[in-house]
């Protein structure tokens, strides 16, 4: 069943997933596609199989900072759908991929009917809140280099060792000037941890990146395991 490519859906009992499956469809998510604009109603809920959904805060002077990253281990939109609500931030596809998608009203009905499904979605919402809190703390106290490494680790979890990323984009997502990214990327490349070529980063030494990153990524992984158990 393709829907099991999403790690949350995979954690549902087969009988529960069977009840949901008729309402799920597969959808291709294209890079830069906007899933929800700030204060717009949420029509669909996304359970990615691949790619990255990025929640960003738009800044008054232009630009945006990323505060949350969702991939195959998560979902976006369930809480808003359960409450017939709007999106409070801007949600955009950062890396193209596929997702299982369900219409918001159907998700609400199914979540009310099926306690294990509801519980899974609520657990994920707790995790996502923790993720955003961790990001806030990380942005406030950690330096650019460990933060960039943490970011690469998360990207590695979701898309692998080959990352299509411009420095401009990285800088914007991290809320730093592009020149700082140029400097850090050069340092990491010199240390043999990454290979950087115009808009393309290859992770060469994953252990090295882990050592250079702040602890935030590991913290979140342990939260996730606590709520959902080890990878299935």
């Amino acid at each position: 069943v393709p829907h099991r490519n999403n790690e949350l859906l995979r954690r549902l009992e087969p009988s529960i997933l069977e009840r949901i499956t008729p309402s799920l469809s597969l959808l291709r998510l294209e890079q830069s596609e906007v899933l929800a604009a700030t204060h717009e109603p949420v029509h669909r809920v996304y359970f990615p199989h691949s790619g990255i959904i990025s929640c960003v805060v738009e800044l008054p002077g232009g630009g945006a900072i990323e505060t949350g990253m969702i991939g195959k281990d998560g979902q976006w939109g369930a809480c808003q759908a359960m409450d017939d609500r709007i999106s409070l931030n801007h949600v955009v596809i950062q890396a193209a991929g596929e997702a299982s998608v369900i219409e918001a009203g159907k998700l609400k009905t199914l979540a009310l009917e099926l306690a294990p499904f509801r519980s899974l979605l609520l657990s994920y919402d707790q995790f996502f809140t923790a993720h955003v809190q961790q990001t806030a703390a990380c942005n406030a106290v950690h330096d650019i280099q460990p933060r960039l490494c943490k970011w690469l680790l998360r990207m590695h979890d979701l898309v692998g060792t080959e990352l299509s990323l411009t420095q401009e984009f990285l800088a914007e997502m991290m809320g730093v000037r592009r020149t700082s990214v140029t400097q850090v990327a050069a340092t990491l490349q010199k240390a043999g941890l990454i290979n950087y070529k115009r808009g393309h980063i290859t992770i060469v030494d994953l252990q090295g990146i882990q050592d250079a990153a702040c602890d935030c990524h590991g913290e979140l992984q342990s939260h996730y395991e606590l709520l959902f158990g080890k990878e299935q």
Partner: protein
Amino acid sequence: MARFHFHLRDGDETIFDEEGVDLPDLSAAIREARLGARELIADAVRLDRDRVPNALVVADQDGNILYTLRLADILPPWWKPPPG
């Protein structure tokens, strides 16, 4: 819009900005260079870095240098080294 590259000069070594960024004009590029330089200085001071680039070089796509910003130039006036 034009493509501007911001190379970091660190003594006799240069970190090349291969990628560059699109900006409306040179004055926007200079503004960006100043913002970038401020962040580099702030970080260097905060982290007690022993190596900090000493200049940001703004270049066009063909590698022509359009502007050089010495990091010392954006220090508060009373911190600036004497000219020369």
